[in-house]
């Protein structure tokens, strides 16, 4: 039997508090709870309104949050931390969605993406989302922190201030990381990797 919603809401609120205090076990316990709910809501979205286009991360995350925590008292810091935990999950969901679209639409083939069409919020640009995901995979081997920033900014659509809150660093630091991550991704997506002789 699944836990009653009330009990679950309480548990999640507690885990979010733990997360804010930086307790290391909190994310591990939150993730499975959030992922299941998020996936169900995403699926419901795809079934009703907007069947193959705009999955709006912010909307999905907000709805997931409301469902898990309850509408009553939305504390923006809790909500922001929640988005922080869910950012990577959102990435998985959007990439999965993009892959399905690719295999159904183009028989598995890829179409080239224009860099300036890749935008935060351009969720119907499936190839763009997949390209970012692949580039992030490579960036992860060099700098995991930058990947985290991109997940927050791109996949969870958090602002600089919200990302700073999640990461517990200054807005200035997030901005720097974001700038360099953008540059790195742009170069990975456009410039051929140069082979040294």
């Amino acid at each position, binding site marked *: 039997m699944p836990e009653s919603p009330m009990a679950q809401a309480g548990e999640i609120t507690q885990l979010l508090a733990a997360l804010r205090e930086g307790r290391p076990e909190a994310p591990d316990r939150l993730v499975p709870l959030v992922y299941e709910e998020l996936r169900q809501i995403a699926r419901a979205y795809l079934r009703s309104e907007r069947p193959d286009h705009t999955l709006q991360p912010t909307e999905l995350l907000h709805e997931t949050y409301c469902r898990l925590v309850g509408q009553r008292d939305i504390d923006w810091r809790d909500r922001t931390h929640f988005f922080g935990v869910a950012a990577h999950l959102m990435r998985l969901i959007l990439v999965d969605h993009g892959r399905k679209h690719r295999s159904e639409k183009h028989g598995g083939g890829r179409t080239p993406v224009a860099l300036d069409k890749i935008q*935060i919020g351009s969720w119907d640009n499936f190839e763009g989302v997949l390209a970012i995901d692949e580039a992030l995979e490579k960036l992860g081997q*060099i700098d995991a922190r930058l990947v985290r920033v991109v997940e927050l900014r791109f996949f969870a659509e958090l602002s600089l201030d919200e990302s700073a809150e999640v990461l517990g660093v200054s807005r200035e630091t997030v901005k720097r990381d974001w700038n*360099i991550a953008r540059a790195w991704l742009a170069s990975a997506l456009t410039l051929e990797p140069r082979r040294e002789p």
Partner: protein
Amino acid sequence: MSPEKWERVKALFHLVEEASTAERDRILEDGCKGDDDVRREVLRLQLAAAPSDFLEDRSDLRLAVGARLLDRFEIVRLLGSGGMGEVYEARDWRLGSRHIALKTIRPDLARDSRFVQRLTKEVVLAREVVHPNVCPIYDLFEAEEQGRPLRFLTMRLIRGETLDALLRRRGPLSAVEALPLARQVCAGIDAAHKAGVIHGDLKPSNVIVADNDGVESATLTDFGLARTFEEGASAGHSSLVLATPAYAAPEVLNRTPVTTAADLFSLGVILYRMRMGGLPGLGAAMPAELGWRRAITACLDQRAENRPARASAAIQTIEGTGRRPPSKWLWAAAPVALLAAGWLLPGRAAVSRWLSPVPKTRHAAVLPFDTPSRP
């Protein structure tokens, strides 16, 4: 590249970015201390970071609550966002601090002069539509916000909830609940069509329902705005189609010239969703009432010329006062082609004969509300 070198690259990249153009070379030379790997990597990143729209920071373009535009409009709150930009509630201090809706236009679109021209044209047209079920557009503005140009349009603020939100909250409506709303939606559509304005993106989130002491009124928003995109697409200029696929007529998705009949198709999807909660499709259940079934079926005809000419005709059909549609709408046997396309809504009673005739050559056009179609 070693982690230490990468950290140096990041620090140096930042220094160079902050510096004035004149100083950049010197800072790079000093900073890399003769390390070619570091120099090359910083240069490469800089080249890639050169101004472009890639991952442009739109959340930071959001207007802050309390912000003032043109010394006139004060942002009260964000109402929502869509394909064109964001919609805010704002106060117009020049007109007795009235509350209005303010819709911003995405910078990449606002920068496109042809887009702005078309938008202006559509706004001029849409302003001719004066009807209680159509949200009036007031004006188009250009301002500067934090050193960046900002275009936005103003319209009446409709206090209420979108039909989309209402249906999510309440679930499917009964015939009695749905009829007054449907009637108003149809009246709005007909009024705009009479003025020569096509909506192009009718859907539940463009219908705002207000509740005045138990009496619900429906207002259509965004008349004409989606058309701005569509013309751009046919001019081979932009790949954008603003229309929301689930509600768009086949001819919209095929990019063939769109007429008022496209709005009638979207109306069919809206009527269906009002009654059944989800989107129509093969095997999906239909409303129990014959009038509703007929109206929906007629609107959803794949062929634009077979759809009702006016939305009021759909209402008459619902109420059973209209002419009976030709039998081909109701009983044509299309499902074979649809089954071949592998499309079935799970878990629903198969009531498929309401579907309209299928052009033989195109399965794709049959399934505008499906997830991707097969070639």
